[in-house]
């Protein structure tokens, strides 16, 4: 089984040396987040990732997620691990305390994301899009929707997805065919098919909140007629409890070469009830709040996978003996392969790229935070002017 030790010291080094950033300091939001506090968080994060999440990588690979009678079953051990994961509050790390979050900076959650990507990417994907959905709803949805959905998403009891791709469109969203028909009560009926939906269905949470791009019947063709809708797997009652099943079914799950524990679904929407998020025909703008955050997290996935690959190849190079080097000191005919020049070159190349990536992620997380908060301030100013 692969081994993994979270690079907490490297992360703390970045936190201490790179946090002094002019635009970021002006926010004055995280002055109380000290290095000691971050060290405590990262130490705990290292423990859960090394002890609880890492074994799930092998389990997920050997027992892929399956679709049984229209319901996705996650690999053995995922449910128990997810329960512990949400009990410890890891889903709420960078969320607003107003909705039950811990209010940590995105730099800290980026470090946690890296550890989780290294430990088990399949497991990580079940909670990854929840944070994107949280940010999208928090920035674009009306207050009543925020209050109804966000606390459960932050708590990890409900998860989120991002439904963009269809059989006819992916990058070119102007071709999108899913349609939304407005109802007399202000809700919409969503019909269409979405594919490649990460964690589109699973048995880890009691509800799944899909953020779906669709075209309203009276909207123009192309990207200028796309709106964003919140479509829950189970309709949420007025008191916040989970009600009847919405018109969403899982058609199939993808058979993949890697991340087999993660369910990548085909979702069929059959007059499913949806609620508009943001302005009509401006769905792409709202979705880009989520997409921009997810893009960094996908980059971090690459970083996490690189880190665990480096750690395991380094460990192997220190224990494997093959051939003699030019300056051999071996008496039994072979040197450790780490003594060979080209192996050292490969390992150092990997290490230097990983450290550079981690620093860039840290900086980008700071810049994203600055841009999101400035957007909110501008929006609040606009609203103040409008209602004066």
């Amino acid at each position, binding site marked *: 089984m692969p081994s993994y030790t979270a690079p907490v010291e490297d992360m703390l080094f970045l936190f201490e040396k790179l946090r002094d950033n002019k635009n970021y300091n002006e926010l004055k939001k995280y002055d109380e987040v000290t290095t000691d506090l971050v060290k405590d968080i990262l130490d705990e994060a290292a423990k859960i990732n090394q002890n609880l999440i890492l074994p799930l990588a092998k389990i997920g690979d050997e027992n892929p997620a399956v679709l049984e009678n229209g319901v996705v079953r996650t690999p053995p051990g995922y449910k128990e691990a997810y329960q512990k994961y949400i009990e410890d509050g890891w889903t709420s790390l960078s969320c607003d305390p107003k909705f039950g979050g811990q209010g940590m900076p995105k730099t800290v959650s980026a470090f946690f994301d890296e550890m989780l990507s290294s430990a088990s990417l399949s497991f990580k994907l079940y909670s990854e899009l929840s944070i994107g959905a949280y940010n999208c709803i928090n920035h674009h949805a009306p207050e009543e929707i925020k209050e109804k959905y966000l606390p459960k998403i932050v708590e990890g009891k409900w998860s989120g997805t991002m439904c963009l791709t269809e059989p006819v469109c992916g990058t070119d969203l102007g071709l999108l065919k899913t349609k939304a028909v407005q109802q007399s009560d202000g809700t919409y009926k969503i019909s269409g098919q979405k594919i490649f939906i990460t964690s589109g269905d699973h048995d880890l949470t009691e509800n799944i909140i899909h953020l779906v791009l669709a075209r309203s019947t009276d909207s123009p063709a192309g990207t200028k007629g796309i709106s964003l809708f919140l479509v829950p797997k189970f309709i949420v009652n007025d008191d916040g409890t989970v009600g009847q099943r919405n018109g969403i079914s899982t058609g199939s799950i993808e058979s993949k070469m890697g991340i087999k524990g993660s369910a990548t679904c085909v979702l069929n929407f059959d007059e499913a009830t949806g609620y508009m998020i943001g302005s009509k025909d401006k769905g792409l703008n709202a979705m880009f709040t989520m997409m921009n955050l997810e893009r*960094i997290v996908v*980059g*971090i996935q690459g970083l996490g996978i690189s880190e665990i690959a480096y750690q395991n190849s380094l460990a192997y190079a220190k224990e494997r003996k093959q*051939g003699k080097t030019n300056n051999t000191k071996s008496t039994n005919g072979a040197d450790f*392969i780490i003594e060979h020049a080209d192996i050292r070159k490969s390992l150092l190349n990997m290490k230097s790229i990983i450290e550079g990536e981690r620093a860039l992620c840290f900086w980008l997380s700071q810049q994203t935070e600055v841009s999101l908060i400035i957007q909110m301030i501008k929006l609040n100013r606009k609203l103040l002017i409008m209602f004066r």
Partner: protein
Amino acid sequence: MTPVVKSLFTDLAMEITNDAMQIHGDMDIQKTKELSNYIEIIELPQFTKEQIQFKQLI
């Protein structure tokens, strides 16, 4: 910047994991061995000779 990070880190992860696999296959050892043999047995004396000639020219 976010799409650049997404794309770059994914590409680099492909390279790094490939290098990690190659380390498990001892691939680079053979390369180093062949190169060192080449320098020691065949090329090094010639190179030294030419180097001496070059120094004399200077």
